[in-house]
């Protein structure tokens, strides 16, 4: 039997397969170089970079919850210039697509970061994180179609790279935001970022997280994320990258059948550093069994 074709296209970027390591869960790839074959991944999305260094939120920053985890990292990073200087040399050698996630507090900052990255050859695409729940104002751009569109349009003008807009589930109607991103020139949307949540230490009567609230990820959010991906994929023409609690290839396939062209793997990387590689192998096996030659046949094939 011929090897199934797993290649997918996100804007002008072709990925060898649809399985992508999600931002914030995979560092800049280097952290996992001894633990998994980075070259086997469809792409790596790096931890969000901001224009200037950002120290992040006070600890504790992570806590496990039933079938999930809360995090409130708060965009800790050394800024885009340090990222280009310190992280890009390694990423330039990685034999997979590199998608750089960017975050900012103003439309102009988004554009400035994108402009700096536009000059870097090995930056294959930019993921615009308008949905970080852990910094003040981090969700502002994701909440209204108008503000989301303003960010995307400004980044579009600053960069020729394929653009992926990462959407927040903490909104009234995620499909409206997705349509706004599409209209403003985004090449794809990725969803969902984490759900805002909290946990309380009942002995101390204090929040567990130093930031009080954080973002919920992991299997606990999967059914909601899946529903949002399905609803969004029906409304837009650009590719949808689905994520939210994908632990195994079966989860990934659910997202793809619901309409995702690709998937991102987040929390699962912590549980098993080889999760993404296992998911790729699982999808391939499924396609062989189901006699599906091209992954594109699966995207949005949901029978209702």
């Amino acid at each position, binding site marked *: 039997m011929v090897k199934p074709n797993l290649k997918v296209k996100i804007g002008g970027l072709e990925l060898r397969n649809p399985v992508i390591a999600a931002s914030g869960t995979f560092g800049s790839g280097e952290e996992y170089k001894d633990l998994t074959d980075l070259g086997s991944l469809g792409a790596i999305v790096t931890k969000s970079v901001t224009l200037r260094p950002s120290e992040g939120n006070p600890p504790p*920053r992570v806590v496990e919850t039933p079938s999930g985890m809360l995090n409130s990292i708060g965009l800790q990073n050394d800024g885009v210039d340090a990222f280009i200087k310190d992280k890009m040399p390694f990423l330039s050698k990685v034999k997979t697509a590199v998608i750089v996630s960017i975050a900012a507090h103003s439309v102009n900052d988004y554009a400035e970061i994108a402009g700096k990255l536009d000059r870097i050859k090995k930056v294959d695409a930019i993921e615009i994180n308008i949905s970080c729940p852990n910094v003040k104002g981090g969700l502002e751009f994701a909440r209204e179609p108008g503000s989301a569109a303003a960010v995307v349009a400004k980044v579009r003008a600053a960069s020729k790279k394929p653009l992926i807009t990462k959407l927040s589930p903490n909104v009234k109607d995620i499909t409206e935001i997705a349509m706004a991103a599409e209209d403003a020139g985004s090449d794809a949307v990725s969803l969902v970022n984490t759900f805002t949540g909290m946990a309380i230490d009942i002995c101390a009567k204090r929040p567990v997280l130093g930031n009080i609230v954080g973002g919920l990820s992991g299997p606990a959010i999967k059914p909601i994320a899946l529903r949002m991906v399905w609803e969004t994929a029906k409304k837009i023409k650009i590719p949808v990258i689905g994520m939210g609690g994908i632990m195994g290839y079966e989860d990934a396939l659910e997202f793809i059948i619901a309409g995702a062209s690709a998937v991102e793997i987040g929390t699962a990387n912590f*549980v098993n550093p080889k999760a993404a590689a296992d998911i790729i192998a699982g999808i391939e096996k499924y396609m062989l069994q189901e006699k599906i030659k091209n992954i594109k046949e699966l995207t949005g094939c949901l029978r209702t």
Partner: protein
Amino acid sequence: MIQSAGKVISNRSVKPGYYLMAVKCPAVAKKAKPGQFLTIRCGNGTTPLLRRPFGFHRISASGFEILYERIGKGTAFLSGLKPGDEIDVLGPLGNGFAIPRGKKDFVILAGGMGVAPLASLAESLVRIKKAEVCAIIGARSEKALLCEGHFKNIGIRTLVATDDGTCGKKCFATDVLNDFLEAKQRLRPVIFACGPGPMLKAAAHISKKRGLECHVSLEENIACGVGACLGCAIKTRSGYKLVCKDGPVFNAKEIIW
């Protein structure tokens, strides 16, 4: 670091609620140093979800031991493992205890489960020529006192403090440390400590006051364990550092308590 299958050799209760598990896992053990840690995936389900971190209690060429308290879902899973069972091990992670060259006097300060990673350190210290090692172990009560016999067996002077006085002196481990240092003023020992935050803070304070070198092994909630998620940050004099990658052992004077 490497992700490898480990085989449970033995897994027994050393005291009610406390377990010692020996794991055959040469790939990880060969590279492990005292003070480093490993993570174990506790089952294949989604709860517990994240891997659980443990300090290396003892290290040999073919494997390692972990000493743990059955305290939540992860350790409940572990306590049910039988010899021959396979576990998913990731390690060694982080930096171990750096033993300063030329030093001969050492104090090991342990509080509660903090004693676990200090046993492998103790075994390294006693191998240093003419080393004088004193261990001070603090626990809630005799029921939670661990490793006293092990430290004595390898020839280390061992002092005990319990909160309720059921064993050793009825005081904190750091009170014993203070008395010990007061009585041996000529000694300039290097202190290695692991235990609850308040104990480490007190140890840092005591060592600062006396101008002694003190290394502390810290704990934080850990998600990735490899420095990727930035979840286990602690505040230091040079900004946030990661327990999993920059630690878990830090010079006490670096920490903002």
